[in-house]
């Protein structure tokens, strides 16, 4: 029974990692950029929800709408960041773009410290619904349930979107070869914008779920979560969408089981030790393809 509870704990954290990892992996797949500001989009989403919830409640609307507002805001922020910070550097060496990404991350953190002060703020408990009871001594909280189900739906939806829709096809084409995609009449700029919008929107969903489960919002909250999700993306094979999902979920479960059954004092060492072993055996990650670099 305890094992099942621990698995559910792990899947909940893992789902959030997976949602964030998807953003990293989609952006990497299409522009070969590790968007280090992605973690901070989560933080922005958290503050947007925090600010919007009281407004929604006083306007007599459901606080659930904060998810929509956060998604819209983060999607716009993602597109704007791409347009302002990354697009002008598209031909530049990769290291310049990477450093720009770190710059954007620092800019967002400090901007929000200025606006909201560096002190953590409690997040309202708007998902206060009774837990799902599965027998005595065994219940799953509403937030956990919502996180797991919503992430599942989003992941399936995203997979469908990438495989079946026209925009999804253009994304895959741009990811394969942007030059050839442009020659085939695909609007590369628009495709990249949409990718950023979707990735950032996912971060916004993750952020509302994350803040509900861990109810404190602070300007630096994105850096650690972002880093872990990035590791999950690498673990699954960066650039591969199923890789990010599986990588995120696996990492959450491994983390939770390590803390419960091996050692809570050494959990980080054990988790990252396992990751290093996996990457030694399969350097491109679980789902990574071995593509030889073109010279």
């Amino acid at each position, binding site marked *: 029974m*305890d094992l099942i*509870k*621990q698995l559910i*704990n*792990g899947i*909940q*954290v893992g789902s959030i990692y997976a949602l964030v990892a998807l953003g990293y992996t989609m952006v990497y797949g299409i522009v070969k950029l590790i968007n280090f500001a992605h973690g901070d989009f989560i933080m922005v989403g958290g503050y947007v929800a925090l600010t919007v919830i009281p407004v929604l409640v006083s306007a007599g609307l459901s606080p659930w709408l904060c998810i929509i507002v956060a998604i819209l805001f983060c999607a716009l922020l993602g597109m704007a960041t791409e347009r302002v910070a990354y697009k002008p550097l598209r031909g530049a060496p990769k290291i310049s773009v990477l450093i720009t990404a770190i710059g954007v991350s620092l800019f967002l953190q400090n901007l929000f410290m200025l606006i909201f002060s*560096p*002190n*953590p703020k*409690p*997040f*309202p*408990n708007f998902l*206060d619904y009774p837990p799902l009871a599965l027998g005595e*001594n065994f*219940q799953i*909280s509403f*937030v*956990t349930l919502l996180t797991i189900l919503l992430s599942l739906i989003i992941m399936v939806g995203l997979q469908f979107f990438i495989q079946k829709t026209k925009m999804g096809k253009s994304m895959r084409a741009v990811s394969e070869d942007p030059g050839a995609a442009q020659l085939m009449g695909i609007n590369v700029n628009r495709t990249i914008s949409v990718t950023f919008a979707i990735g950032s929107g996912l971060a916004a969903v993750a952020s509302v779920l*994350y803040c509900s*489960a*861990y*109810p*404190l919002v*602070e300007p630096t*909250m994105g850096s*650690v*979560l972002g880093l872990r999700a990035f590791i999950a993306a690498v673990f699954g094979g960066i650039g591969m969408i199923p890789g990010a999902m599986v990588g995120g979920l696996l990492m959450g479960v491994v*983390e*939770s*089981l390590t*803390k*419960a059954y091996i050692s*809570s*004092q050494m*959990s*980080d060492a054990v988790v990252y030790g396992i990751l290093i072993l996996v990457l030694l055996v399969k350097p491109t990650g679980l789902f990574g393809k071995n593509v030889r670099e073109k010279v």
Partner: protein
Amino acid sequence: MKKFFAMAVAAAMLLSALTGCSSEPSQNSSSGEQSSSAQGIEGAVKIGMLAPLTGDVAVYGTAVRNGAMLAFEEINAQGGLQFDVEVLDEKGDVNEAINAYNKLLSNEIAALLGDVTSKPSIAVAELAAEDNMPMITATGTAADITTKGDNIFRTCFMDPTQGKVMATFAKDSLQAQKVAIMYNTSDDYSVGVATAFKEAAEAAGMQVEAYEGYGDSDKDFKAQLTTIAGKDVDALFVPDYYNKVALIIAQAREVGYDKAILGADGFDGVVGAVAEDNTAILNNVYFSNHYSTSDESETVQNFLSNYQAKYNETPNSFAALAYDTAYILKAAFEKAGSTDADAVIAALAATDYEGVTGHITFDENGDSVKDISVIEIKDGQYTLHSKVTM
């Protein structure tokens, strides 16, 4: 012959240089002491303060600054000995604290009031011990701070004391048989209190069913808490600061743990870190603290009303400790009659002061000897449960 002469001269020069070295400073310092104690204190005494005014533990730093500044303003308004206080923000970070300390040192402070949290306090204490700088921390609870040198004092009680008190409380007031402990593996304060609690609990015949750690950047504690909830313990002890504690309590209640949660003075401020519609999770939470606002004594009530008037909020225990510390410093400088480090240190060691946080004397290590209050949180309010004399 020439060579021999040269060597002899060189040897003589060396000898005179050596004796010069050994005799001169002692002469200097003795004459310096005499002149300064004869003259008394001229002008304002320069006090340096270190406090985290921004960052994770800013609530503590701001409270310490406010409490100390209130006291110094009162002292300066009374006439007599005047104090000139410089406060530097160290953001709760060890490196920032060391830089800030060096800056204060170059501004020639006569004594240091600080630091606020344990980790930076230990780092600064190490430097202050080398410089023989009179240092008194209002709130640094780690055992290692005052052991760095005889020039270091503390107004609050120590980590081990809090662990012991809460273990006794769990046994006597909660009749606990089985307890669990969760602590932050990368924080001296958390480790220190947890270790003391564990030892005291085992000595009192309670079973420690779980002794779990977590990392500084962790936000998810459900794995550990699920394990603990499954062990049917009577009390969970979590010695950490309020932001972490708010997350841990929320998740503990989420995984179905509804028994008592115990903590130390880091819990002060936890009510503000929980959304107002959610304070029910804080019921059945107890922690050790330095004073209680429901204390009726005149000193406490005066302090409360003055603080309220100046800052428009209720002072937490950090503000109270800082307030007492400022008065302890004032008394020490008056008694020493000079800003000479050794005289001030001797005067501090002989402190016997009745303050907001109780009657304070220092033992041979520079640690305070005083009462501890156990606070219970009821419907989002801190209430005094009982007072323990150590």
